[in-house]
């Protein structure tokens, strides 16, 4: 008979060991799944874990997908550490993309390079505005942020649909639901030729460093987390819970909006109904798998990016549905949560006491 015995203090080793164990279990389930579908499991693993890192170009693509995941996860980590359950980052991402796209569409042939800053700023503000609705309704009306932020995802996607099917549709686009391609001047500068990875990757890494400083070296970051861990202590210390709520949502809205701007003015280059690619939801997994720690989330974002690329390759090379990505992402979070038991509990054999 197995029994859980509480540890006196959370295990540091398992705090970082648990994501690795969860990944191992997910891989084992993956192998079983590949075999069950009559595919070579070694080939399957190759597609997910080797192909995305085997060449400079592949690494660039890895960076392209890891960038929005990391940026969004950074903001979500602030939310989750403050016990604010923003699960609507996907909507904030979409509104950021719409705002950035709106500015990018204003650019003409003779616009200066400064437009890139305007595009990114618009994205940040758009995401913040969308998250502010959730913060306002929670603050003023006590409405649960989980459901409100999630409902706003659907609203944001419909808004994008309205724009690309309606007023912003490219008149010369053969009636496809998409805006015209943005002027070249709005393109986010690429890091190197021959790869799609752009300065967004650097912004995301700088963001991770900034988050580390904010969380672990500033009073504001400390106040933010005390509210999440011990609301009573935070009240006693005079840390405002309203302030923490607004800070968390505005930061995460801003990073999600920035990710949206980088995406439409970077790899995509126009607004289409396919802008929402689930990064906002996958970033939740990145945040948890990365232990809400900036460094951990960098690794987790790369891992989740591998899942995305692996899913696409599994479709083109192995003839498996692309949705395999979602299956593995969900499984990883599931197993992680189960493995996290080991952080706070020891497994003992036999009946205690």
């Amino acid at each position, binding site marked *: 008979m197995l029994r*859980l015995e*509480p540890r006196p203090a959370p295990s540091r080793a398992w705090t970082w060991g648990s994501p690795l164990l969860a990944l191992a279990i997910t891989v084992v389930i993956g192998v079983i799944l590949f075999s069950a579908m009559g595919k070579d499991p070694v080939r399957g693993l190759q597609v997910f874990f080797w192909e995305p890192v085997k060449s400079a170009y592949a690494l660039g693509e890895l960076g392209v997908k890891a960038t929005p995941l990391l940026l969004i996860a950074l903001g979500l980590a602030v939310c989750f550490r403050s016990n604010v*359950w923003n*699960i609507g980052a996907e909507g904030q991402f979409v509104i950021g993309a719409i705002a950035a796209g709106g500015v990018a569409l204003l650019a003409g042939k003779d616009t200066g390079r400064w437009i890139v800053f305007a595009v990114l700023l618009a994205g940040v503000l758009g995401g913040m505005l969308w998250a502010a609705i959730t913060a306002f*309704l929670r603050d003023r*009306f*006590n*409405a*649960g942020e*989980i*459901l*409100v932020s*999630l*409902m*706003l995802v*659907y*609203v944001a996607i*419909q*808004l994008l*649909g*309205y724009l690309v*099917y*309606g007023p912003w549709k490219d008149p010369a686009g053969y009636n496809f639901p998409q805006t015209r391609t943005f002027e070249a001047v709005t393109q986010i500068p690429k890091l190197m030729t021959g790869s799609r990875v752009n300065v967004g990757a650097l912004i995301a890494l700088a963001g991770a460093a900034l988050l580390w400083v904010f969380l672990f070296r500033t009073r504001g970051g400390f106040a933010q987390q005390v509210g999440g861990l011990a609301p009573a202590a935070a009240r006693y210390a005079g840390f405002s819970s309203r302030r923490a709520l607004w800070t968390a949502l505005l930061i995460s809205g801003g990073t999600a909006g920035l990710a949206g701007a980088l995406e439409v003015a970077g790899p995509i280059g126009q607004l289409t109904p396919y802008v929402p690619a689930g990064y906002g*939801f996958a970033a*939740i*997994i990145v945040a*948890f798998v990365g232990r809400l720690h900036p460094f951990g989330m960098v690794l987790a974002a790369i891992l989740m990016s591998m899942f995305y690329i692996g899913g696409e390759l599994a479709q083109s090379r192995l003839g498996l*549905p692309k*949705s*395999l*990505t*979602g*299956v*593995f*992402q*969900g*499984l990883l*979070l*599931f197993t992680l*949560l*189960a493995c*996290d*038991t080991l952080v*706070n509990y020891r497994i003992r054999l036999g009946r205690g006491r």
Partner: protein
Amino acid sequence: MDAYALLLAATLNAGTVLALAALGLLINEKAGIVNLGAEGIMLCAAIAGFATVVNTGNDWAGFAAGMAAGAVLAAIFGWLVIWLNTNQYATGLALSLFGVGFSAFVGIRYVQAKLPERPQFNWLGLGDVPTLGPALFRHHPLVYGAMLLAAGLIWFLYRTRGGLVLRSVGESPQSAHALGYNVRLIRLLAVIFGGAMCGLAGAYLSVIYTPLWVEGMVAGKGWIALALTTFATWRPARVLLGAYLFGGVTMLQFHLQGQGVQVPSQFLTMLPYIATIVVLALISRNPTWIRVNMPASLGKPFHPGG
């Protein structure tokens, strides 16, 4: 007049999906567990039910398959949150994310599948009564099933010993434990019931309501069902009423389009989601009212003996 009869009929039909799911979720919330995995469960059940009906041709086998899928997923969720004390929000979210991916993965073979034509129902011949007939007496049995379920839950929760025990587990698990009730087992059963009902709702959606399989077809109905329990301040009758209200909002968009109202369809599609937000804000405005009605241990873990 007949347009309104059809609108009412469509409202009851659409509300049934929400009612079945929300009544199930009501039970596990009464026991103190929030299951944010409702959306994922409904999706997996929708494809399980649809695939079963495609292969067997039997609707009721499809419902059973949907319920079984929902119960199994809910049991896994329940084991994690009740025995391993994982965070209820995070675990439910994991279930929803997994459900979206898994249902799409399994469902890809059924995207083009068609279900056989079903006979029209006409209960006791009342379906031929003008206006009232088409509005009320031509529905699928599960439409009435949802109403009976609500009535049954009112009776169970407030008139039986079992209901009292369930509510006490949700209000004060420590006291229920001290009285000798197996809090964890009761919570698990409540979670499984919730999952099975979400499963039935998902299967009804794909087998009867739509009836076809589309990736992500639940489209937030699981989340709206979660909002409904708050909206109803955890009372079964109000859950049912709320479900029909939201069913009506969903149908209103088609009605308005039929009436030639010139609003872009995307804004009409937004309606149920915006309505959910507005209603949540209005209901939650009074924190005391919510606190009085909400099961006191909702979302909080319970450690026996600890």
